[in-house]
């Protein structure tokens, strides 16, 4: 069993008057893939957006309770969000490369954080990030082309490379394959397997098969509550909760 990287305790999230998460207690292990499953609107995405404070972007969103990374309170008002997000990268549902060149897409983060002072250092970061996201071979000769000119799957790997470029410890993935075809999905899953050696990964997914394939630990959310969490194998073979059983066998959701 790996160390606990992120620990949430009695985490509640409100959008205005509506409560989106109810007392979520969930631990995420270091260098492991945790999959979050559940029907749409159940709070999976809301939960991972608490980890890098992306919910700050939404004015009406309010987070209470405790969420810690390596003992540091993420929900602390005085926390430097910029340095938190440097340590917790995120990949979104729809590939969202900037309308810049492939190179600039990757170098954007490091430049902001003052990494890679010289051109050659920056080149190195770009190359490493693209290699880690298994995109280097496909794009090494056309780094000045716009990121938007890549195919959907390549764009998503570009976004993963962008997240890796600032050398985070945790990568959050919000349904990263929902806009991709099966072949591109297979590539991303392969990549996730590789990345978990270095990073702690949380992936939100609607595909049970994907959760089984990529994750070691799975959490099932329903209506803002964490219903059950455990080893992926156990959750899918022998869940404790009836609702989990019903969801994974497709009886609702």
């Amino acid at each position, binding site marked *: 069993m790996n160390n606990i990287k992120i620990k949430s305790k009695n985490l509640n999230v409100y959008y205005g008057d509506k409560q989106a998460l109810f007392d979520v207690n969930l631990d995420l292990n270091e260098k492991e893939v945790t999959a979050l499953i559940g029907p749409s609107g159940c709070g999976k995405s809301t939960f991972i957006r608490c980890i890098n404070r992306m919910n700050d972007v939404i004015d009406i969103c309010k987070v209470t309770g405790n969420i810690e990374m390596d003992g540091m309170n993420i929900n602390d008002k005085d926390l430097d969000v*910029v340095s938190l997000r440097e340590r917790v990268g995120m990949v979104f549902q729809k590939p969202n490369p900037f309308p810049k060149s492939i190179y600039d897409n990757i170098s954007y983060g490091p430049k902001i954080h003052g990494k890679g002072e010289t051109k050659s250092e920056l080149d190195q970061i770009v190359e490493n990030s693209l290699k880690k996201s298994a995109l280097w071979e496909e794009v090494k000769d056309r780094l000045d082309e716009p990121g938007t000119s890549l195919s959907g799957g390549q764009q998503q790997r570009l976004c993963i490379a962008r997240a890796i470029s600032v050398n985070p410890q945790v990568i959050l993935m919000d349904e990263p394959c929902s806009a991709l075809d099966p072949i591109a999905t297979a590539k991303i899953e392969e990549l996730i397997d590789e990345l978990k050696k270095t990073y702690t990964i949380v992936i939100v997914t609607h595909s049970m098969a994907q959760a089984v394939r990529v994750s070691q630990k799975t959490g099932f959310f329903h209506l803002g509550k964490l219903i059950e969490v455990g080893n992926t194998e156990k959750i899918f073979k022998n869940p404790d909760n009836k609702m989990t059983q019903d969801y994974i066998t497709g009886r609702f959701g």
Partner: protein
Amino acid sequence: MNIVLIFLITIFSISLFFYGKSKTKTISIKDNIKLNALPKFYGYYLVLWCSIPALVFLLVWSLFEPVIIKSIIIETAANQGATFNDKNEANLIYEKIKAIHLGTYFGDIDSILKESALAYAKFINLFTNSKVVLIFGIIIASVVYSLKKIKNNNKARDDVEVILKGLLFVSSLIAILTTLGIIFSLLFESIKFFSVINIFDYLFGTNWSPQRAFVRDASSITVAELEELKDAFGFIPLIAGTSFIAFIAMLVAVPIGLFSGIYMAEYASIKVRRISKPIIEILAGIPTVVYGFFAALTVGPFFRQVGENFGLTVSSESALAAGLIMGIMIIPYVSSLSDDVINSVPQSLRDGSYAVGATKSETIKQVVIPAALPGIIGSVLLAVSRAIGETMIVVMAAGLAANLTINPLESTTTITTQIVMILVGDQEFDSPKTQSAFALGLTLFIATLVLNYIAQRAVKKYREKYD
């Protein structure tokens, strides 16, 4: 007479609508057949058939009737011994005859005029009567035709569709033809102007003083006069003044407009936005003449006062005052358009930037603005063409003298101001001075057209980025 006819056609059409509706209903019930369209479509069908041919005929008739009567009358007058040398004198006689007929002519009436006036009355009567007869004939024919169609249970719904499509097509045709008409009238008058003044003298001349050509018929200009006029129509001071004032206006409007657009799109809370956006847009609704007298009466003298305190001579009508106020007028265009453009940058791009740890201003500067840039350029170019075409503020605040200067404290003038100056007051329509207004208008039109085209291309390019 025409109004009565239109009224009758309308009444007739409305009653036909109800007639057609109930008639088809009863047919369908009585004969137990399924109608090819809802009863109301038969009503519409009758209305359209009853009104359109008659109205079109009335319109065409009204266009040609005066022309035909005029030529007939002038001919009869000539036959009775009236003498006229050219078209203008013929027109004069026709106007006299018309006035006699209406009883508003108070000069001497000789026998020729009297006879012609009687003939005029006769023709007017004849034309009016035949107009009424023909219109009723057309209405009866088209109503009979359409009623017959209806009795055969035609596909009235499709037919109405075809007629409506035709109507819409004609409307857009009118819009296009009017624009073309304006362009051609500009073009032809400009060609007349350029037949007197060399186009290169116009385009590259540095002196603008069209008063020299006042009240001189283009056809009777002597060679010596022409030589003198050669350097009276130099375009350079005007384009320089126009660009200069537009430039000052953009210096004011672009930064303020863009920054307020960014604030509205990115920082303002919903509440602030809801209040302040309409307020900014009110600026766009203020009539330009109000800006104009504000510039002339408040800002201009204020600058002069300030200038005096610094020991500078500031003209009370200065390019600076006009440009500044024009810039303020344009702010809402830039701000509102760039606000829209920035808003349409997908949130996902901002999220992507925040997620690697960028702050809000870094995100705006490095992701949002570059992504929105083509659209912003488009909005700025639209604002420039607005600035170039603006007249009132410049007339009131920037002066009328065509100085070729880059000192913003002096008075200067623009193309639009000069067009106003040329066309105000008594005109000799054939003089090069008056025609120069058309040349200026054409030049201005081409300039704004090019700017608008570039702006639209920029905006289009922007659209392609995300779709």
